[in-house]
């Protein structure tokens, strides 16, 4: 019997798994996908929000600012790129000015430090490429940028290295109550556990409904994004939001931790929880709106468009609690923005809930190692370090991905780590071949070959991404 089963290996599930690994518990982390971080964690704005826009009095408002503060430490421990570049909410008119003032006041209530309202001159001194029509801004220096899936992957790796069992390709089909605990029925076997933590993203309501009557509903909201090539990545220095509206936090433009520019998202409710299709009209809307912030965004430098789903709850807030009438069943639902920003604080809170259930023995794991073996990012090394690395391992001299300068050694390493890559996209998420301007056109075949060799599989059996996402059909005649 497991002490805790965590359903969903996105950033919430992986973070909570790692936090629970600090205690001597038997832990199982499940995901229906063949890789961690394959859904909402894979496709979002990649922002660590400062915490001024989540309403005070809501869980979103409560956890965001404290969560934000904790990112330096966790990213240092796990060797994940994180940059506290700060954010600006820009205003164009008096109405925006009023909104910005409200955000500021709300931020103060939420405990957001060091915010300032900037006048026109100040904001244009900070950002040279933004529209002259911008007359004011809310500056929040604590906001940051991160790669959410790289964080979740690092968390999963560290969790597994600290004793968590990770089962992928494991879809929860039903959950039965035991006395005490639960039986989790999956396509990959049945598992008994004292506690369940439901981190199933857009499917969290369905998982919850397996043990109790519906108490919240996930209404997924889709957002479309553009990623632009790196020569656009430094056109702004901060995350720049337009003022929030009923459509979300407002279209943003922001540098990414890897030096690209991200532009998006719009917001539209969809009915299908698997609907990740980009929509031309929506992208056009994103583009038109973003150009109001800066007409210097060159959309001919786009290298990728994508859409992601936000797991919006019918309650309008995170649903983080032990379900009434279902002892030991804990929801982490409605986990949309600022879910990523809040997660370090939320995970701590969830650990307290687990402890307070009294269902498990609470003993510290003395062997817990918070640090992940550092990742070599060849492209970021100095010349001397590059020379050293190639001397150590000649595969650091083999550049596989020419756009992002990724070496064969890095790819091999990401395959063999705990919670390692098994698919072409898995490699792309971890070390970036395919993320660049050629989108894997040149390196795709090489990555496929390396995966086949390292995993001792036939090259035809290497998938691009999820189940049935085959790349090759058969040998030629």
């Amino acid at each position: 019997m497991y002490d805790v089963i965590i359903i969903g290996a996105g950033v919430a599930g992986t973070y909570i798994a790692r936090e629970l690994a600090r205690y001597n518990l038997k832990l199982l982390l499940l995901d229906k996908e063949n890789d961690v971080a394959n859904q909402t964690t894979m496709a979002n704005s990649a922002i660590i929000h400062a915490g001024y826009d989540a309403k005070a009095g809501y869980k979103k408002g409560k956890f965001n600012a404290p969560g934000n503060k904790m990112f330096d430490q966790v990213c240092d421990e796990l060797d994940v790129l994180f940059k506290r570049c700060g954010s600006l909410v820009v205003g164009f008119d008096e109405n925006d000015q009023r909104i910005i003032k409200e955000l500021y006041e709300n931020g103060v209530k939420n405990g957001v430090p060091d915010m300032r309202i900037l006048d026109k001159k100040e904001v244009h001194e900070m950002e040279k490429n933004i529209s002259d029509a911008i007359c004011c801004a809310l500056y929040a220096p604590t906001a940051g940028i991160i790669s959410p899936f790289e964080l979740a992957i690092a968390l999963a790796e560290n969790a597994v290295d600290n004793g968590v069992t990770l089962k992928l390709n494991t879809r929860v089909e039903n959950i039965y109550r035991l006395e005490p605990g639960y039986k989790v029925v999956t396509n990959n076997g049945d598992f008994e556990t004292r506690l369940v933590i439901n981190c199933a993203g857009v499917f969290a309501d369905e998982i919850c409904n397996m043990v109790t009557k519906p108490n919240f509903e996930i209404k997924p909201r889709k957002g479309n994004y553009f990623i632009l090539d790196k020569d656009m990545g430094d056109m702004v220095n901060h995350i720049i939001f337009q003022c929030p509206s009923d459509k979300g936090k407002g279209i943003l433009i922001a540098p990414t931790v890897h030096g690209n520019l991200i532009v998006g998202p719009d917001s539209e409710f969809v009915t299908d929880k698997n609907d990740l299709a980009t929509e031309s009209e929506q992208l056009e809307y994103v583009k038109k709106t973003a150009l109001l912030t800066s007409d210097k965004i060159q959309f001919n430098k786009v290298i990728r468009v994508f859409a992601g789903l936000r797991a919006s709850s019918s309650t309008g807030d995170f649903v983080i609690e032990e379900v009434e009438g279902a002892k030991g069943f804990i929801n982490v639902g409605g986990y949309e923005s600022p879910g990523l920003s809040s997660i370090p604080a939320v995970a701590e809170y969830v650990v307290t809930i687990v402890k307070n259930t009294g269902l498990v023995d609470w003993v510290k794991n003395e062997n817990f190692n918070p640090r992940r073996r550092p990742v070599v990012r060849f492209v970021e090394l100095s010349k001397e370090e590059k020379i050293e690395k190639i001397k150590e391992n000649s595969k650091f001299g083999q550049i596989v991905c020419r756009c992002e300068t990724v070496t064969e050694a890095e790819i091999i390493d990401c395959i063999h780590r705990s919670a390692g890559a098994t698919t072409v996209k898995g490699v792309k998420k971890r070390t970036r071949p395919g993320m660049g301007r050629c989108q894997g056109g040149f390196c795709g075949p090489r990555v496929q070959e390396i995966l086949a060799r390292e995993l001792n599989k036939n090259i035809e059996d290497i998938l691009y991404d999820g189940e049935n996402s085959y790349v090759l059909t058969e040998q030629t005649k």
Partner: protein
Amino acid sequence: MDYEIVVIGGGPAGLAAAIEARKNGVQKILVVERDRELGGILQQCIHNGFGLHVFKEELTGPEYAERFINELKENNITYLLNAMVLEITQEKEVHIVSPNEGYLCIKAQAIILAMGCRERTAGAIAMPGTRPAGVYTAGTAQRFINMEGYMVGKKVVILGSGDIGLIMARRMTLEGAEVLAVAEILPFSGGLTRNIVQCLDDFNIPLYLSHTVTKVKGHNRVEGVTIAKVDENRRPIPGTEINYDCDTLLLSVGLIPENEVSKTVGLKIDPKTNGPIVNEVMETSSNGIFACGNVVHVHDLVDFVTEESRRAGRGAARYVQNQLDNSVIGFETIAGDGISYIVPQSVRIENVEANLDLFMRVRNIYHNVKLVVKSGDKVIKEKKKAHMAPGEMEHITLKKDELQQIDGSTLIIEVKEEG
């Protein structure tokens, strides 16, 4: 380790440039190739049609490449494989990494850029719909099929009628796949006429002009593609959709010169060609750094790449031998009505060998027009053209005596109605 000339790229451009520099007396030449073998993209172009201009015979891509690879080896020109150039500097240091050689920093007297081009992707055209496996650029599919020996799908729709797309329509058909349609957003194909006839018409593959993909379907692997007719602003027209059940979408939607290395040294890039601005000897905005082939502008025939690269090889040789006159300021070539770009962008008559070849692409389909070369209001040359299309590169040769007629700082070429 010092070289007189370092050539970046061992495809057709780099090979021809290196060999030509050797023939012009340069001893220490290094060719740096990032792939496992020399020859570049030619190695995956196993169809024929190469060499008609240069060799007056029809060769396959690998055969065409082999002639140059053999000549390179006969000339004992040094080359590195699996070697990636990370950076070049103003001092003409070339920073290279390779598994065998480690990190090399090579000082060159001249550099020739010959990195070729890459394909425009689904992301770059903001393809609507899902992002499953089964969407390939035509060149990637070509690599899988012709070099790795694996098929990539069974039922195929192709977007874009560039030459690689057309070639792949035939190739996939011959390998047993069913090519359902080729959609082209423009009202005309960007590919060579001979490829439309030999690769589509001969196999009854329909070409839908003024059509584009409006939706990719399928979560994990492509399950279907919708195409629709577009209006004159390239917007899909509702009600004109055609749905295809297919497992593969190939893209042949343009090529982009690969100038990331050029940008590390701050070369001026022509926004029309996406390649470095070059002069009459294919020298870029930085003295002693030359460029040739698809890294400068996308060619339709490799034969023209070879000719241009030989010019770059001679230019680099003359530079190394101090035979180029860098003191003079030449004239600029200006793309006039109907012309999208001209290469070279600037010319110093003093350095022109015998004749000056100007390469250009037109913006539209034209019938019975003429290309007019003007200096100020003075017409220097006219060339009648029965047919011109953006997919076929045009060229005009100016003889020395014609060049002498140029006064002022510009030369304009434009398309004019006949008569």
